[in-house]
């Protein structure tokens, strides 16, 4: 097996995640799709690291993980706040920034 298959898998997962963002209306599921895309990018970075024989790709994947963790914290806090004021987690309802 050629290790480039990992890149194809990453591309596939990223595409599925992007479709999920477009398709779903529940804000939490949209968020999960974004996580899926981030994970796919991480897999690609790890594979690049193996491809080039140095650890830079892994370092960048590590930073991606940290940023994703921070993003999840803030994003979920925003979803909770919106849910409190609108009693719905649907992205259709949140047409305005105004609460």
């Amino acid at each position, binding site marked *: *097996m*050629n290790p480039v298959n990992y890149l194809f898998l990453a591309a596939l997962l990223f595409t599925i995640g992007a479709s999920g963002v477009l398709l*779903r209306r529940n804000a*939490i599921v949209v968020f999960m799709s974004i996580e899926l895309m981030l*994970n796919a990018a991480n897999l690609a970075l790890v594979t690049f690291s193996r491809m080039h024989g140095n*650890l830079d790709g*892994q*370092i960048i994947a590590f930073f991606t993980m940290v940023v994703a*963790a921070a993003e999840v914290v803030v994003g*979920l806090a925003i979803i909770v706040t919106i849910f409190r004021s609108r009693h719905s987690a649907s992205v259709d309802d949140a047409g305005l920034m105004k609460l």
Partner: protein
Amino acid sequence: MTTTLLAAASTSTGEAVQFWILGTVAVLGALGTVLMKRSVHSALCLAGTMIVLAVFYLANGAYFLGIVQIVVYTGAVMMLFLFVLMLVGVTAADSLKETIKGQRWLVALCGLGFGILLIAGIGSAGVDTFVGLGEANAGGNVQGLARSLFTEYVFAFEITGALLVTAAVAAMVLTHRERTERRLTQRELAEQRVREGKHLPPLPAPGVYARHNAVDIPGLLPDGTPSELTVNATLRERGQVRDVSREALADLAALERRTGEYLGRNGTDTRAVRGAADVRDDVSDDAPDTDEGRAGDGDRDRDREAAK
């Protein structure tokens, strides 16, 4: 560590088998994340995909990232997701009815186009030569990562620290709700209750004595009607109140009838017996899930009454 463990340039048959099996699982998990109706199922599918990706990191020689993936993603991030799902309400299924006309087809088209572009790009990128991590991981994966993290990328690392602090503060600011009025003391609450003049004593407990003690079953008043007051306000609002008053009344009536028969008071209390028979008919009509034995008992009772 042997060189075979260090993600060499060529892959073994074992890795190929692992890739094809776990890759299928990962894609199925991703599809489940996107297509599952309930968001809890989506979250579980995503957790499965993340675990598979952790295995792939390990197979690719990223030992540290593989462990971090499991600890941070499937541990912390997915836990946070499930926590918020519980907060928002698990039972709320996402309606998959499309609000924008033709959205699904557009999404499929966009996804397909994007995927084809991406995969064609990778396919034509000439990435056939693989160096492998054998040399880079020679001194240990964690040591190698630490060396470049604290020398070459130290500035990015510090910025990341600032980002994490900001995120923690942001989460607290966003979810903190300011109390706009003073919290009432116990004395004030008691005085308010006296002033309103209703429910001075503590609220009655739910459940029917000696038969049901679940919190969603209202207690019965002396005349056999259920008292909504005994059930928690949240359950009342959700409509999750189970009413057993008719069954209880029917049981009581049957007991009275049997006692009456035993004591030989056949004609004395006909009104109560007839009322009980009516209630029993209602129960057997409305609730087909009452147990067979009792229904048979009721039929026998009715036959006996007809014979009279």
